[in-house]
C-alpha cells in the first residue's frame, strides 16, 4: 500500500484532517475516509456532476480532484448547504417544485445551483441551463429543476430586499 499523506483542510466551515493515498480522489476521501457520503459517484470521470462540491469558491467535480490537492483549501459539500436545521432556499425550492425523483443527482445540482445564484442572483432560463449542463439528471428532464432554481432565485432576491 502506498504511503499515506496527511492533509489538513476546511470542510463546511470546520477544520478537517485526514490521511489519504496519493491515488485517492477527493470524492473517495470525502465518502470513504471522512464519511461524507452526500456527494455521489455516477461516473468517476467528471461527466455526470453527481460529485459536485465547491472548492475555494468554484464548483468542481470532486472525482477529478485528488485528495492530496486540497491541503489548505476550503470545501463545501452538500452536507454544508443547509444552515443547521434550516434548509437553504435552493433545497426548499427543489422540494417544493418536485425537482427530484430518485435523488442521486440532487446533491450535485443543489451545490451547483447555490453557487450560480451567489454569482448571478437573477439568471435567465438559458443561463441556468448553461450553468447546469455539467450535471446529468436522467429522471426529471430538467424542467422542474430549472423551475426550482428560478423559484429559489426569486425567494433569495426577495430575502435580500
Amino acid at each position: 500500500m502506498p504511503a499515506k499523506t496527511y492533509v489538513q483542510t476546511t470542510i463546511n466551515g470546520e477544520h478537517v484532517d485526514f490521511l489519504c493515498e496519493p491515488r485517492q480522489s477527493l470524492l473517495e476521501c470525502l465518502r470513504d475516509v471522512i464519511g461524507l457520503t452526500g456527494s455521489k459517484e455516477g461516473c468517476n470521470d467528471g461527466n455526470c456532476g453527481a460529485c459536485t462540491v465547491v472548492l475555494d469558491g468554484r464548483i468542481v467535480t470532486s472525482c477529478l480532484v485528488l485528495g492530496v490537492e486540497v491541503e489548505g483549501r476550503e470545501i463545501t459539500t452538500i452536507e454544508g448547504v443547509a444552515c443547521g436545521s434550516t434548509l437553504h432556499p435552493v433545497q426548499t425550492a427543489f422540494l417544493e417544485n418536485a425537482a427530484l425523483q430518485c435523488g442521486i443527482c440532487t446533491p450535485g445540482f443543489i451545490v451547483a445551483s447555490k453557487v450560480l445564484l451567489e454569482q448571478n442572483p437573477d439568471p435567465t432560463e438559458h443561463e441556468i441551463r448553461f450553468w447546469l449542463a455539467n450535471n446529468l439528471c436522467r429522471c426529471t428532464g430538467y424542467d422542474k429543476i430549472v423551475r426550482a432554481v428560478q423559484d429559489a432565485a426569486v425567494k433569495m432576491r426577495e430575502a435580500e430586499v
Partner: protein
Amino acid sequence: MTTTEYDPNVVLSTKEYDVIGTRPLRPDGADKVTGRAQYGADFTATGLLHGKVLRSPHAHARIRSIDTSKAEAAPGVLAVVTNADLPKGGEDVVGGEGVAVGDLRRNVLAADKALYKGHAVAAVAAASPHDAEEALSLIEVDYEVLSPVLTVQEAMADGAPILHEDMRTMAGGEAGDEPSNVAEHFRHDLGDVEKGFAESDIVIEREFDTATVHQGYIEPQVATALWNTDGRVHVWCSTQGSFWVRDEVSNVLGIPESLIKVTPMEIGGGFGGKIPSYVEPVCAMLSQKTGQPVKIVMTRQEVFEGTGPTPGSNVRVKVGADAQGNIKAAHAYLAYEAGAFKGSPVAAGSQCVFAAYAAPNQAIDGYDVVVNKPKTQAYRAPGATNAAFAMETVVSEIAEKLGIDPVDIRLKNAAREGTRRADGPTFPRIGCEEVLQAMRDHPHYSAPLEGPNRGRGISIGYWFNVGFKSTCTISVNHDGAVSLIEGSTDIGGSRASVAMQAAEVLGIRAEDVRPTVADTDSVGYTDVTGGSRVAYATGWAAHDAAQDVKRQMIERASQIWDIDAASIEMEKGVIRSTTDSELRMTFKELAAELASTGGTIIGSGSIDGGGMGAGGGSFAGNIVDVEVDPDTGKVTVLRFTCVQDAGKAIHPSYVEGQMQGGSVQGIGWGLNEEYFMRGNGEMANSSLLDYRMPTSLDLPMIDTVIVEVPSPSHPFGVRGVGEANIVPPPAAIAHAIHNATGVWMEKLPMNPGAVMEAVWSK
C-alpha cells in the same frame, strides 16, 4: 421561453378528492436534498471487503481455462470466484422472472463462453477496491476468440456465428432442426391482412433500424452481501425489486429464499435496468469464501458494457388505408436484439405496435434474436418505442399523402373500449381518443411555427402497464398518525403517491401517513417497481390496508360506544354514529383511545393487480417543434408538449415528472443515444461524455397535459404513468424533421450525420 401565455402544466381532472390530486412534499424529501439519504454505495459494515469483477475483453470467445492462483496470492486479496464456484443443476428451471436459471448463472459469471465484451468472468474480494482492481490483472484467462454478431441482420444471416450451439428457433411450439441465433419467432393475426391491403387505396411500407440504447441511470449498480455463519445471506443493494433479487440470488446460489434477506437501499434511477441481479450473487459468493461482508460498486464503463441496454432493432411496417384515411390493414415485422441470452422485449413491442389503432386486419411477426451484446433488459415501456417509431412514421406519411390532419387520422382510427388487439386482448375503457383530443385542443398544436428549417410533428404511443402483486401494512399511532410499510422501492416519489391513497381512505392528511420501504423479512411479497405498477398496485394495497384499518376503527368505536358497528360510519377522518349525533370522534381522538381499549390497530392489504394490460394501460402523445440546421443536420427541439392519460393523478407533480423524464429519454433515444460498436464488438463510447444523454442545455421546458380517463379496475381509477411517455418522442421528432426537411427518417438515432445522409439521398 421564460413567460408563457398558457398554463405549461395542465390537469384535466375528472373527479376531485381531498388528498388525491394535491401536491404535498415528499416524505423522503428532507433526506434527499441534504445528502443524508442512504443509497447502495453509501452502505458500509464492520469488516467490509471490496469486490471487483474481471470482464471479457472479447465480444465472443470460448473460455478454455481460468487461472486465479496469482490473483489469490496478491496483497490484500482474500478470495476469487468464477462460474466454477456456482452450484450445478436446475439450469432449465425458469424463475419467477421468466429467466432460466442456467442463463442467470452464465450471465452473472461466464461459463464456457464469453458472449459480450464486458461479460463477467471472475471476481476478486480484497481489503480495498484498489487492491481488488490490481489483482484482476493477475487472473489468467485463455480465450479462443470467435467472430461476433452485433445486429439482428448479422445474427439472422445464413452462416452467422452461433452464440449457443443448443439454441433452436421455437415457432408455434415447435423447435427448429438447426442451431440458430433466433430464439423464437411468433406471429399474431387478426382478420385477413392480404384482403385488407387489396381493399386499400394507399399502401405504405418502410423499414427502420434503431440503435441499442442504455437506461442511463446516474447511480451505477451496487451491492453488499454478508453470508453469515448461520448460513443466512443478507444483501443490501440498489434494486427495483428486492423480492426479485431474493429469488434470483436463491436460484443462482441454489439456497432457499427464506435464508436470504434483501434490504433495498435508496435507488439512484433504474428505468427497468435495475430489475435484474448482476453483482448481488457474486458478492454473496465472495462473502461465503471470506466470512466477511463484500461490496461491489460498478464503474460507469461496467454499467455500459456489463448491464442490460435495451435492444437495437430492425422493424418493417406496412399499412394500407382507404382514401378517407381508414386503416384497412397493417403488417409489422419486428426483429429485436435479445443480447447474449434469449428474452428481448419483442413480445411487448408486438403487443404495442398497433395498439393505438382499431385496424380490422393485422399481422405481427416477432423475432427474438441473440447477439454479442449484454443481455438486454427492460427500459421504460420495453420494446414499444422501437415499434412506435416505425408505425407512427408510416401513419404520418399516409396522413400527409391523403391530405388529412395527422391527429385527425389517428382519431379516425383510434382504439377504444372493445377494440381487439391482434395479440388477443380486448381493451377495457382506455384514453386513446381523449389524449388525441387534448393534443388537438392544445394551444401548441395551433400555434404558428415560423422560420426556415422548422417543422412540427406529432405521434402517439401505448404501454400496457402491469398489475402484479403488492402488499402493505398500516399501523395506527397514538397521536393519530399512521405508519405505512410497503415493499416497493421508491424511484420517483412513489412513497408519496402510495401514502396519499391511504390518507384519502382514512380521511387524514398526507403528512400524517409515514411510509417506509421495508426489507424482504419485514413486508409481504411485492413485485418490482416496474411496469408502471407502484402507484397502481401498491397504491391499491395501501387502499385495502387503509380500508382494513377503517373497518377496525369502526369496530373499536362500536365497542367503546357499545352500539352496533353497522350504525357507525367513518368519513373524512370522523367516526360518528348515524343514529346518535352525540357519538362522534375524530380519527385522532379514537387513535388516542386505542392503547386503553384493546391495543393498536394494524391493517393489511395484499393484492394481485393482474398481469399485463392491468387497468387498460396508458396512452401518451407528443407535439414537438424542431429546427434542423441545414449545414450540419443538427436537430434542436424548440418546443415539446407531452399529453398522457393518468387515469387519476395521485400527486400531479410526480406524474408530470414521469411525463417530462420519459419524454426527455425519448428525445435522447431519438436524437443522440446509441451504442457505437466497433467491428470486434467493443463499445467505443462507454462513458457519459461519449454516450451523449440530453443535458439541460439541449432542451426546452417540457409542457404537460394530464388526461384523466379513470381505469376501470383501480379503486381511484389510477393508471400507471411511468412508461408510455417514452414511446412517442422519436416518431414525433421524425415527423417534425420531415416537415422541416422533406425527408422521412428511417434510423435511430437521428443525429446530425444521419439527418444529412437522409437529406443528401433525397
